[in-house]
């Protein structure tokens, strides 16, 4: 019976263009939908699989505003069995702050009788790209950590996980539980929610936590976008008639065989 805590982050669903808020401190997401990163979608899928395979629980957690309930409900609809909202202004939190409040939840649930054998996170948040919350959490909990795993399986008191190696192969880890793993997209296909899953998810009570931690922040001075470039595109033509111009270009670039 493996209990898994999987951590997700509500982020704006960006299309082809980004706008910043007037103070330059964040992305203007007022006209955007929200989602979680592909890495986290895979982490949720792995958490649900492990919990199902072992008869354990998959609890989903996020640190953010009450709007993030949307992302928690989605994870519940997929098969997570419990949800925790650590209510906080995520923009005031740096990666060390996020790790600290997650560690506090892990410890308080442990004191209340639920120990998480596995904590899963995304390899990096798709907005802040800090690459460190999972590692920081592992230090706070004194647990082993592997970053960037794409598949995993629990075997007794060990988790066996695969990650890509720098030379394109696969590296295999066997790590004693309890452990922290950060997940990278690519090893599994996340499932889609079912209608019964969505109905069931509505009834689950989300555990709302107000953190005692005073955040130290991320060090952000401001965000900036690359200067908008006027389009410099040269249109070579329309439809199949453009083929000769395209191959002329290939020859000019020296990329033909």
């Amino acid at each position: 019976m493996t209990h898994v805590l999987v951590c997700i982050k509500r982020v704006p669903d960006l299309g082809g263009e980004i706008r910043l808020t007037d103070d330059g401190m964040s992305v203007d997401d007022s006209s955007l939908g929200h989602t979680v990163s592909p890495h986290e979608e895979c982490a949720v899928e792995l958490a649900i699989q492990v919990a199902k395979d072992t008869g354990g629980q998959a609890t989903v957690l996020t640190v953010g505003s009450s709007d993030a309930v949307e992302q928690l409900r989605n994870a519940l609809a997929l098969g997570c069995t419990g949800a925790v909202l650590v209510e906080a202004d995520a923009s005031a939190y740096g990666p060390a702050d996020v790790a600290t409040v997650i560690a506090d939840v892990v410890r308080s649930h442990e004191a209340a009788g639920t120990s998480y054998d596995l904590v899963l996170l995304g390899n990096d948040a798709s907005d802040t790209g800090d690459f460190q919350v999972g590692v920081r959490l592992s230090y706070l909990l004194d647990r082993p950590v592997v970053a960037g795993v794409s598949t995993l399986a629990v075997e007794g008191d060990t988790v066996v996980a695969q990650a890509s190696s720098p030379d394109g192969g696969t590296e295999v880890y066997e790590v004693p539980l309890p452990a922290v793993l950060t997940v990278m997209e690519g090893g599994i296909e996340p499932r889609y929610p079912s209608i019964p899953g969505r109905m069931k998810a509505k009834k689950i009570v989300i555990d709302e936590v107000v953190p005692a931690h005073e955040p130290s922040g991320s060090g952000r001075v401001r965000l900036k976008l690359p200067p908008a470039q006027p389009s410099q595109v040269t249109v070579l033509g329309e439809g199949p008639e453009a083929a000769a111009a395209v191959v002329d270009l290939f020859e000019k670039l020296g990329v033909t065989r």
Partner: protein
Amino acid sequence: MILVLVETDDGGASEVSRETLTFVRRLGDDVHALVVGDGPAGLVGQLGEFGVTRVLHADGDAFTSYAAAAWAAAVVAAARDASAVVAAGTSRGNEVMAHVACRLGVSMAANVVAVESAEPLVVSRQVLGGSALEEMALPEAVAVLTVAGHACDPQAAEAPTTPEVQPLDVAISEQDLRARVVRTEPGEPDESGSLKSARVVVGAGRGAGSADGFKDLLELTELLDASLGVSRVVTSLGWRPHHEQVGQTGSRVSPDLYVACGISGAIQHWAGMSSSKTILAINTDADAPMVTKAHYAVIGDLHEVVPAINEELRRRSSR
């Protein structure tokens, strides 16, 4: 002193590590390099060409297979007088530096592309998959950071050095080896490795239409000796395998030519190929972001345009 964790491949210091060694010269301090495990022949000479004055070498049983915490212990042991500890913004680099930041009790800046001010240290780094930058302050006595791939071109130093090589004593605890690679399995011969190093990448997006819509695109890759790269839509619909994905959560590529076929140009895909030297977009929509940002474009359906290009390539090669 600035300490750089150097990753190696068969040819010596990896390309991103050479970029990192070039980048840290902007910080204007003596550069020491840390090499973990067996280094390839000629590595020390190469590090000298890049201006490294001292090479610290961590070797022994703890380093025969990769364990991020053990590597971090070596970095911390080598970083005693460092003002900055730097690695390339690779999977390894970001993982090890996160451990180092925890051990030193400081913050970490991932994927830095520029130094905005040296005193106090403010850097610019990639966020949102590289489509925006964040200026971030690193106020602590030792700055921990990784340098984004392609933040600069690798360039030998103006004044090459003959580095002093010094074995590094590292105290490794049992805890440092709890998460360690126990075995490696070779990848499929044609997985993302060839995509990342390809001179030409033929990219395909939703416009391919279906899993059966890649025949002409694959023929174009053959004719140009190119690799196929696809957008996330294509892999999540199951049309092509994930190792072909280009973008924020796939491979980053910077070929001489990227031919974007039926790709609208969402931020997440752009993040993976924007450093291509030349971009040719083939798209039915003249206003798609990929078209307006490209250097060249053909407005049309890839299923009509690509076969015509293939035909023209075959015609010219048989001349």
